[in-house]
């Protein structure tokens, strides 16, 4: 896919173009790393500012952090269960925060003002590499969670109600990361494209509701990803009787 010819400075539409960085024999998508570092930097700044002076009576940013912590704990606890949620809460929370800040950063920050030699800045989650990386991490975590908690008894899960389930459960191990990564990637990329196309067609007013819809979708996608990750881990550590 090439660059479509555009007259508006903000409405340039580039799909599938990347800023390549060559590190040794490795090739990287530079724009993804740049925005992901900004996202990580924003997260770390917020966290460091909020936890610098914590009190029993919360003040300022501590309130926000405690709200986030509570939200993530409830999410992890309802999906994973009372026994194991503590071990997985940081992972679920990091997924949620990273995806959420990435999505909103991609939607809210006017990245197009920064010119790159190739490709364009945007949400890191609009790159398939990022979402597949996150989804594979989720797969690894639920395997690790199940195996570390139940040992080889984890594989009872595959024949749990009846051995007929075995092929379906094996297929599930592949469809889970696939659906996780493509859902997130597709939603975020589609949102960026819809906004870009609308801005190209009608540069005034009309894109604004779609942008709000995009913010909504972005938040929902972060929540869905984190909830499903927690659900998969919960499924793996659950005891069948």
């Amino acid at each position, binding site marked *: *896919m090439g660059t479509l010819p555009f007259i508006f400075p903000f409405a340039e539409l580039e799909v599938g173009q990347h800023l390549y960085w060559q590190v040794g024999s490795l090739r990287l998508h530079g724009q993804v790393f740049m925005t992901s570092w900004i996202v990580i930097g924003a997260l770390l700044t917020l966290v460091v500012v909020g936890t610098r002076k914590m009190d029993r009576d919360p003040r300022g940013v501590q309130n926000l952090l405690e709200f986030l912590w509570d939200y993530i704990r409830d999410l992890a606890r309802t999906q994973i269960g009372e026994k194991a949620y503590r071990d997985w809460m940081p992972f679920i929370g990091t997924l949620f925060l990273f995806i959420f800040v990435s999505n909103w950063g991609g939607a809210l920050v006017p990245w197009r003002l920064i010119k790159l030699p190739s490709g364009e800045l945007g949400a890191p989650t609009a790159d*398939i590499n990022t979402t597949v990386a996150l989804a594979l991490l989720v797969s690894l975590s639920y395997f690790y969670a199940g195996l570390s908690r139940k040992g080889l008894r984890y594989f009872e899960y595959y024949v749990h109600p009846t051995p007929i389930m075995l092929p379906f459960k094996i297929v599930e191990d592949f469809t889970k990361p696939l659906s996780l990564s493509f859902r997130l990637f597709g939603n975020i990329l589609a949102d960026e494209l819809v906004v870009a196309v609308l801005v190209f067609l009608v540069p005034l007013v009309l894109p604004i509701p779609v942008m709000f819809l995009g913010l909504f979708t972005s938040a929902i996608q972060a929540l869905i990803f984190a909830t499903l990750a927690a659900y998969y881990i919960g499924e793996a550590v659950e005891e069948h009787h």
Partner: protein
Amino acid sequence: MTSLTLLGATEGGLFDFDATLPLMAVQVVLLTFILNSLFFRPVGRVVEEREGYVTTTRAEAKKKLAQVEKLEGELRDQLKGARQAAQKLINDAEQDSDRLYREALALATAEANASREAARREIDSQRESALNQLKIDSEKLGDLIVQRLLAAQ
């Protein structure tokens, strides 16, 4: 790194997998550990400390409330006892005074009766003696009249 391109040319495309994937995974794992030590653990500690504080304070308050209720009950019992004692005292005093009044009244009535009786008796005796005297006098007079009349004839 082999690039797996499903769309577009050999270079670029939507599904352009390369070393971004593993490095991003490593980055996210690192972020998980950093956030765990900078965010989840400290905030969790503060929140759980507060929850503990609230729980213990509540328990203490509940204990104190129970104590207060117990004391209140005791005091109420004491108050009830004191009220009953006071009521009994009042009743006793009322009965006493009533009895004293009755006694005094009975005594006074008896005395009055006695003195009335005595007075009546005295009156009776005086009347009797007066009547006797009158009788004697009248007899004397009658005798005298009879004598005078007899003498005049």
